[in-house]
């Protein structure tokens, strides 16, 4: 059991949870993730590590309510049953700072994808690497942690579908307009967004890094649920990833594999909504 410090709503569909988990954050490298279980009988779900307070041993998570497990999580107040991590490998740039000194790097984030981007950009900022961010969401209300991210970026550009903040349009439009300013692109967000961001990168011959977030169970390489196809080979996102070179990832397959349990998940979500009630998330 892990003590929840707070678990608060930060947008119409997203929550921020602070939880006491000193072991999980002690060796955390930005880019790694964790697996949580809300209760003893909950599903194991991979979540983003958004921030850490190493002095106090506090782990900060941001998650979007998308199904039964995250809905259940959003209702927790006192204790989180399980959190294991940090899992996977650290971000390539954060792990090899020296190699990237002087390079111009752009992060492209979508929706809650800003959460895993934040610790990376913060780490690079603290280590003297300037980073720009392009951040998009459907509308201004869904743009998260703006004041925090703005403190650690060199330049940030926003895009919203409805034009309620920043440029009206997609992150890919903003990226394409500015791509010649950059040597590397890192993108984290919905798979479909990452696919199109990588398409832009390919078009302009820029290397890209993507962070995959497939279904997972154990998160330690044992079950193979999270397998992705990278450069034609089977890779496990949990131990070989979660980051892969963008131009090598089979996104169409990744999109299809997200639907493996769609039917079952919908049923569980409906049941959970009835059981514990639901705030307006959609």
């Amino acid at each position, binding site marked *: 059991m892990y003590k929840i410090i707070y678990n608060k709503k930060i947008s119409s569909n997203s929550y921020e949870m602070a939880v006491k988990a000193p*072991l*999980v954050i*002690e*060796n955390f490298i930005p880019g*790694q993730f964790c697996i949580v*279980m809300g209760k003893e*009988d*909950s*599903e*194991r779900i991979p979540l983003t590590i958004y921030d850490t307070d190493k002095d106090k041993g506090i782990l900060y998570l941001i998650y979007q309510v998308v199904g*039964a*497990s995250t809905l*259940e999580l959003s209702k927790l107040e006192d204790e989180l*049953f*399980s*959190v*294991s*991590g*940090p*899992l*996977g490998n650290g971000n390539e740039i954060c792990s090899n700072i020296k190699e990237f000194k002087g390079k111009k790097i752009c992060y492209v984030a979508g929706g809650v994808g800003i959460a895993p981007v934040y610790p990376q950009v913060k780490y690079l900022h603290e280590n003297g690497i300037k980073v720009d961010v392009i951040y998009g969401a459907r509308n201004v209300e869904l743009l998260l942690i703006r004041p925090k991210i703005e403190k650690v970026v060199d330049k940030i550009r926003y895009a919203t579908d409805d034009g309620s903040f920043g440029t009206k349009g997609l992150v890919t439009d903003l990226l394409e307009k500015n791509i010649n300013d950059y040597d590397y692109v890192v993108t984290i967000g919905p798979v479909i967004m990452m696919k199109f961001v990588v398409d832009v990168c390919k078009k302009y011959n820029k290397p890209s890094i993507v962070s995959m977030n497939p279904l997972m*169970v*154990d*998160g*330690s*390489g*044992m*079950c*193979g*649920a999270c*397998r992705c*196809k990278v450069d034609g080979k*089977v890779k*496990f996102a949990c*131990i070989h990833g979660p980051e892969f070179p963008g131009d090598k990832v089979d996104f169409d*397959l990744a999109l*299809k*594999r997200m*639907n*493996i*349990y769609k039917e*079952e*998940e919908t049923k*569980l979500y409906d049941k959970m909504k009835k059981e514990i009630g639901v705030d307006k998330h959609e």
Partner: protein
Amino acid sequence: MNDEKVRGKIQDAKTRVKNFDEVELGYTKKEAIAEASRCLHCVNPRCVQGCPVGIMIPEFIKCIKEDNLEGAYEVIAKSSSLPAICGRVCPQEKQCEAMCIKGLKGDAISIGSLERYVADNVGEIKLKKPKSNGKKVAIVGSGPSGLSCAYDLAKAGFSVTIFEILHKPGGVLTYGIPEFRLPKAIVQKQIDSLKQLGVEIICDVLVGNTISLDELEKEYDAVFLGTGAGLPKFMGIPGEDANGVFSANEVLTRINLMGSFKDDSKTPIKKVKKAYVIGGGNVAMDAVRSLKRLGIDAHIMYRRSEEELPARLMEVGHAKEEGIVFDLLTNPKEILVDENNNVVGMNVVNMNLTEPGEDGRRGVVEDESSLHKVDCDMVVMALGTSPNHSAVKNSKIELSDKGLIVVENSKTSLKNVYAGGDAVTGAATVILAMEAGKKAAQEIIEKIK
């Protein structure tokens, strides 16, 4: 003279395919005493030689005959830390029972069933925490090798901490072997007895990530790596990344660890119409029998013949009784999918056996002319594993060509780091992992005083 072994009651096949309760119900007192009375108490007991951990089998059987369960348990506990588990999952027919002199002319003594009888019926054993010797050992992984290593070290006075990545300890005993073969309450009971000895188990820790091996080496007098078999293998055939293709590990983890066979489970499992489990080992049997219990038409597909099936004979027998179909001498060539990437069938070929090779195992060749289609909506790969280096990444530990941890007398190339079980041998059995954990404990006890 009628000298058949006493058979314990088992759940009827028709009933048991509808539940996950244990298949073998275990001996009653009367049955156990009758079976124990068949033992000849050989002066040079061959069965003991057949036991990887050298349990003094005739001694504990003698205690059963005298209805002295505490005595029987004490005899077993001298050699084995997990009798309730080994009595159930050891391949006795290849070990102790294979050596039993009575087996030459008739039925061997049912040593496994007797061991289980003792462990299940002995009542609560209060283990006393031994006097500390001031030394600390870290154990990575809470599967059979780690648990048996922890048990022997704790008994010798070491302060033992086990690190486990999952939220529940037990490793393959918890996530892998199904409830109907090894009830989780039994596993829990054995783990509780370790805790009585003062062993600490910390879950949610992936050594290599949460804590590095280097940190453990600095903090502890010795480290034992019992990290298990590793990553599930896939065949590398077209269509294998379809939505209905799973590793046996995933299916078993969802069912056993996450309880997805229960109606109110929060972890989903696919309840399809027809599934093929590819492979012929114990993991394949566990997976196929679990799927059958979900109401799925469950088949085994194995490229060799029945004779070569690596699974325990008893498991194969139980699977057949339960209506599992064995498609032998057959191998998938391609998994067929629809436009949504869902499995709709497989193209398979028949195989012919060749003469045994140097390893004594018969090979197979494809009969290309036999290519044909089978319908199904799930394919489960039970093909073994390849090593997982998560725990030892960034360390200079010596690995074999196959990527397994190299040990000499249980010791790795790193100072004070020991290893055993599947991480060293590749996928094997619970009892061999236990034996490795035990041996490593002996080495640690001798070297680190």
